[in-house]
């Protein structure tokens, strides 16, 4: 069956080019390695037809042009998750010249489970034995040479975060791609009961037309792999199911678990020879801090303190920066004589200024802090602490990660919902995300309420929001059919944040927002100013008046900003600022109007980008349902809110 290697090394610009894929578990430093290899030559997209991020980059080394594909972090090559299927199909169908298997030397045993399956898949692999420094800290020493002998593939020790071993790794990969070294991959052999049945299946599979290695297919069939089952004839599937049953009868446990156990038994033997325990495991300072962060009482107090101080820092720092920037811009305003010039200046440049003074001070600090929390490894701890709370709304702890990201931008947060295992959980969490105020809405809350009514009112809105998010998630939980799975999550070790990683991460997050937002502000501001001077918007405001003026008690001129807010929520305050030439909103709204407007802005509809993501992930129907339910909720509750404020204040 040994499928012949396609002649993939092609000449381009006098350089030999190769394609290499990075594969491995989550949290093994794969992304760090990817960044080290490709630097800024990266392209982030999606796998065709899937909502899984596809990261691709390139590098030139020793005259070779190498394309690097960063496969998603996975623990197995079964097909329970889209990520696993994508990785498997990529390796088999696209045939990268080399698969660089990144393994965490400090959790070698668990990482080799994936490696074993790569060997079974007959992938051309080179192993990056990463985080050897961390392993040493844990008192573990891994003999790379021994490991290489046992597995029959090259093993290169690396510390990706420090750039150690990376050149050697890529050299080995090139050697393999050029067939200068030959792999002698170990045979993954199971016990007699299992092997007999694998052989039987392989015999049957001889006549099947299938692209995967036959032995891999036989093993996966015994493991009950749904995707592989679809690729073979019914007869084979039936035989496989019968054989799997026989294994279960003999062992008393189901065949997939027998196979997993035996893989771990094989790994156990490898570990015994290649890994030494130098020092007994002892609890260090970081471990002690970890215990505090996840303590059943203190952990929660710390969590509240962390989130509260983050918001406080963003608000105060944002305000400070925003004021400085506004003042700086005020001094450079030229004197303009013509009316057209005035419109252009106020519109286009006004949009630009609004973007700089409102967005940058809040968005950048948010993503910076989020990147720090991510890099430190704090988010999985929060998932641990909040698991039982999330269970009440049909989710589990991991869902807190997209929810926190929602405070930045709903778009990546909706993407992040794919870390949830089932479609139902993905939908509930994405629905909840759309109710979380993103930085655009935080700017509205802060710019209006925080600045002109009082910061305590801004916090109150955020607290009320928490209740609403929980209520809405609970509602979605009741309404959505489907299954929920519990929490199974690896907890990566806590570590000190690396400035470079944090900055790269921050930039990656804000980059797209900046590129999209500024043109919209500038164009939107200009168009709006022109339309106003032509008197075409006033009738629209008149049409919206029953809702905006009568029911919500807002000034008529909030109609158009609310319409534009569908594109970007900050437009809701940026537009009045442009139209009236002031960011002193006290002149434009009463305090109650400000609070009501901020409330409506928080919920009334997902912005266009979020809507498109929802459509992509869940289809038109669901996206429309979400938008309509939000509109109904915001207008109805907004009106009640306005009346309640009036009665109270």
């Amino acid at each position: 069956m040994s499928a012949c290697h396609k002649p993939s090394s092609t000449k381009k610009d006098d350089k030999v080019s190769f394609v290499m894929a990075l594969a491995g578990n989550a949290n093994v430093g794969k992304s760090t390695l990817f960044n080290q290899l490709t630097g800024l030559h990266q392209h982030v997209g999606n796998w065709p037809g899937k909502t899984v991020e596809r990261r691709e980059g390139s590098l030139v080394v020793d005259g070779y042009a190498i394309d690097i594909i960063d496969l998603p972090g996975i623990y197995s090559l079964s097909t329970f998750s889209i990520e696993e299927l994508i990785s498997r199909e990529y390796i088999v169908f696209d045939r990268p010249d080399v698969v660089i298997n990144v393994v965490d030397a400090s959790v070698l045993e668990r990482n080799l489970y994936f490696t074993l399956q790569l060997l079974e898949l007959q992938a051309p692999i080179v192993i990056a034995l990463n985080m050897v420094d961390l392993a040493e800290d844990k008192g573990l020493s891994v003999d790379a040479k021994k490991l290489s002998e046992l597995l029959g593939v090259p093993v290169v020790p690396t510390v990706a975060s420090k750039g150690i071993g990376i050149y050697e790794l890529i050299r080995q990969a090139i050697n393999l791609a050029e067939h200068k070294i030959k792999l002698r991959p170990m045979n993954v052999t199971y016990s007699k009961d299992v092997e007999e049945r694998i052989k039987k299946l392989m015999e049957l599979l001889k006549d099947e037309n299938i692209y995967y290695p036959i032995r891999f297919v036989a093993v996966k069939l015994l493991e009950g792999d749904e995707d592989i089952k679809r690729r073979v004839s019914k007869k084979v599937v039936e035989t496989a199911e019968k054989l799997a049953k026989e294994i279960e009868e003999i062992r008393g446990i189901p065949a997939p678990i027998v196979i997993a156990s035996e893989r771990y038994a094989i790994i156990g033997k490898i570990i015994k020879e290649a890994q030494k325990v130098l020092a007994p495991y002892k609890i260090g300072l970081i471990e002690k801090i970890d215990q505090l962060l996840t303590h059943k009482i203190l952990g929660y107090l710390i969590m509240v303190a962390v989130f509260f101080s983050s918001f406080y820092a963003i608000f105060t720092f944002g305000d400070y920066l925003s004021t400085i920037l506004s003042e700086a811009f005020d001094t450079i305003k030229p004197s303009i004589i013509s009316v057209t010039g005035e419109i252009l200046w106020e519109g286009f440049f006004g949009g630009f200024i609004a973007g700089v003074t409102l967005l940058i001070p809040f968005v950048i600090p948010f993503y910076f802090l989020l990147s720090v929390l991510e890099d430190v490894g704090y988010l999985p701890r929060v998932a641990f602490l909040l698991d039982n709370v999330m269970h009440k709304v049909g989710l589990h702890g991991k869902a807190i990660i997209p929810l926190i990201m929602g405070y930045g931008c709903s778009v990546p947060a909706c993407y992040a919902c794919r870390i949830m295992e089932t479609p139902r959980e993905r939908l509930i969490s994405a629905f909840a995300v759309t109710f979380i105020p993103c930085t655009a809405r935080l700017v509205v809350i802060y710019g209006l309420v925080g600045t002109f009514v009082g910061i305590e009112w801004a916090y109150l809105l955020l607290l009320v929001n928490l209740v609403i998010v929980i209520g809405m998630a609970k509602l979605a939980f009741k309404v959505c059919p489907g299954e929920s799975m519990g929490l199974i999550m690896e907890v990566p070790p806590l570590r000190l944040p690396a400035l470079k990683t944090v900055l790269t991460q921050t930039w990656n997050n804000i980059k797209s927002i900046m590129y999209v937002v500024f043109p919209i502000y500038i164009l939107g501001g200009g168009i709006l100013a022109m339309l106003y001077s032509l008197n075409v918007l006033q009738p629209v405001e008149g049409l919206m008046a029953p809702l905006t003026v009568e029911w919500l008690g807002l000034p008529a001129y909030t109609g158009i900003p609310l319409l534009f807010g569908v594109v970007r929520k900050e437009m809701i305050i940026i537009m009045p600022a442009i139209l009236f030439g002031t960011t002193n909103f006290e002149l434009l709204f009463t305090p109650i109007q400000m609070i009501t407007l901020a409330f409506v802005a928080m919920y009334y509809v997902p912005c266009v980008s979020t809507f498109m993501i929802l459509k992509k992930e869940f289809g038109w129907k669901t996206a429309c349902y979400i938008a309509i339910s939000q509109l109904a909720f915001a207008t109805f509750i907004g009106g009640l809110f306005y009346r309640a404020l009036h009665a109270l204040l």
Partner: protein
Amino acid sequence: MKNNGAEHSGPYRHRHRYRQRFGDLVSLLELKNGQKGVVVLLEGDEKVIRRLSELGIVPDTVVEVINSIPFGGPVEILVRGSKLVIGKDIAKGVLVRVESDEE
């Protein structure tokens, strides 16, 4: 292959056999922090069991509970050198024989 409703109880229809062989088993939820157990059997949804087994939670594996949240919260365990957090409903199905420290 959905012709047999009796299989609903999951792939493990042999719990009694294990009980006879090993005496009383406890779930991960019943272990105190710092206590170790040897996995004897996994109960629950097939997908969940397979995910657990891929992460190294298979029969004869030593697991140590290192942290837990009361009132239906998850447990954090140390298994094969990695730390995993497992929700209550799943942890309930991981049955272990309690390991005394002297062994």
